[in-house]
């Protein structure tokens, strides 16, 4: 069976680095940190008070009516906001496709957790009669896709993918498959997350997963560095418009890149710790390379999962060495989480946007705060400063709690 080629025709992002694609990308190239102090919170209730929070964001009323804004948790706002920007770039709304052939599949790890937290407080303090009829639609993970379908009349496949920190990456892989199989002509995909709340921080903190470098927010996320001591929670979204490449070409769309490979495996090992020998991640990357029809040496850049946790960064480094051999030392790697924090279920969306920009702009965003790489981390992680480089193939890793792994390979578009 001949599979359709998959084009990326629109991208957008929001995170601590900025509220639109250009801001996010330019600040990433400049090596800025999007991590800041979470202000006005009770230190007794918030052991960690730093995050990659989105700043000064207000969704446009053209995208979400004023009356509706308070009814949907923030992850839905981010998804709609970025979808609007990515759609404008892609020109998809003028493509004339059958609405049933345009889908929306978005990843989110926790959905509208802050709204659940607030509603639970209402329920406990004031009883069940005070729980809003809009509570359930405000937080369910698939409501980002749902609202996108309603706003833009996309009547194709519509659902959410939830695989913790691999959610958006899985959503992209699933969406690409929909197009490869001819089941959809175009999809909105990627992911969205906004869970910087007291309860989620308390939960991740209890696992000792978070850095507590509260006094130096900008230095806290330091993947592969000796002094890394946990990840920093980020929030935001990364959205991609995927399209049947032949159809995109026929309508004269600008093709940013191609999705050519996807791998997806499970560690089958531990609820939160990565398999130390990469039993899940190594075959995951190999699957993606195989589907792309390329050799390990063809990869120019890896946007690593690289969360800045002591064990995770070493496990990923070892897995990369196992897959790439000597070439592991030649290719460029970076963890943009050093600047954005970890967007959890949206990470794979945002980082795919970085991968695609790296291809189109020929520049690799850096791993900031990498002052002294730890001994086991001896690859080229693009420390501190962006690097200009001609890029044909990039690989993005996203791994999640539950031992879930996904890898996506993007390719520079050539006719």
């Amino acid at each position, binding site marked *: 069976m001949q599979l359709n080629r998959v084009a990326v025709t629109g991208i957008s992002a929001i995170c601590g680095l900025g509220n639109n694609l250009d801001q996010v990308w330019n600040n990433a190239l400049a090596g800025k940190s999007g991590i800041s102090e979470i202000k006005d919170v009770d230190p007794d209730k918030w052991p960690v008070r730093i995050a990659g929070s989105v700043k000064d964001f207000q969704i446009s009323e053209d995208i979400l009516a004023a*009356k509706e804004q308070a009814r949907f948790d923030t992850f839905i706002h981010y998804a709609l906001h970025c979808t609007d920007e990515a759609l404008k770039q892609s020109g998809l709304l003028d493509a004339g496709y059958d609405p049933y052939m345009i889908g929306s599949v978005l990843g989110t790890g926790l959905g509208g957790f802050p709204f659940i937290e607030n509603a639970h407080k209402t329920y406990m303090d004031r009883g069940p009669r*005070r729980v*809003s*009829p809009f509570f359930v*639609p405000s937080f369910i993970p698939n409501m980002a896709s749902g609202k996108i379908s309603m706003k833009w009349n996309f009547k194709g496949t519509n659902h959410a993918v939830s695989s913790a920190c691999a959610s958006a990456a899985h959503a992209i892989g699933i969406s690409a498959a929909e197009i490869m199989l001819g089941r959809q002509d175009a999809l909105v995909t990627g992911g969205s997350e906004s869970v910087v709340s007291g309860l989620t921080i308390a939960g991740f903190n209890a696992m000792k997963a978070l850095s507590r470098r509260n006094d130096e927010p900008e230095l806290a996320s330091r993947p592969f560095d000796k002094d890394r001591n946990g990840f920093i929670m980020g929030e935001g979204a990364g959205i991609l418009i995927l399209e049947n490449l032949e159809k995109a070409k026929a309508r004269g769309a600008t093709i940013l890149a191609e999705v050519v490979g996807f791998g997806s495996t499970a560690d089958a090992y531990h609820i939160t710790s990565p398999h130390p020998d990469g039993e899940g991640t190594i075959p995951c990357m190999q699957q993606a390379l195989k589907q792309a029809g390329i050799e390990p040496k063809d990869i120019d850049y890896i946007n690593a999962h690289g969360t800045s946790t002591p064990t995770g960064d070493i496990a990923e480094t070892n897995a990369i060495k196992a897959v790439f051999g000597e070439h592991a030392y030649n290719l460029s790697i970076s963890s943009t989480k050093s600047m954005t924090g970890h967007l959890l279920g949206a990470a794979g969306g945002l980082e795919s946007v970085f991968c695609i920009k790296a291809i189109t702009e020929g520049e690799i965003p850096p791993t900031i705060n990498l002052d002294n790489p730890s001994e086991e981390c001896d690859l080229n992680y693009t420390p501190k400063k962006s690097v200009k480089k001609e890029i044909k193939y990039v690989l993005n890793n996203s791994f999640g709690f539950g031992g879930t792994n996904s890898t996506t390979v993007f390719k520079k578009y050539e006719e």
Partner: protein
Amino acid sequence: METIEKVIKIVSEATKVDASNIKAETNFIDDLNLDSLDMVEMMMKMEEEFGVEIPEDKTEDLKTINDVTNFLKTIN
């Protein structure tokens, strides 16, 4: 504040429709396009603002600003 003014204020805040466009005879569904969830939320706000409990079987009869105002007057 008169009961009706208070009702209009609550409805205006919930719907973001300017209070000057909401009249006694304004119908929640026909004029303000409210759906069933909007109606439940609206009645919850009325209950909170007026410190009353509106029985669920009553809400179906409350179709306009006037209906709500009159009902609130009877139970207050």
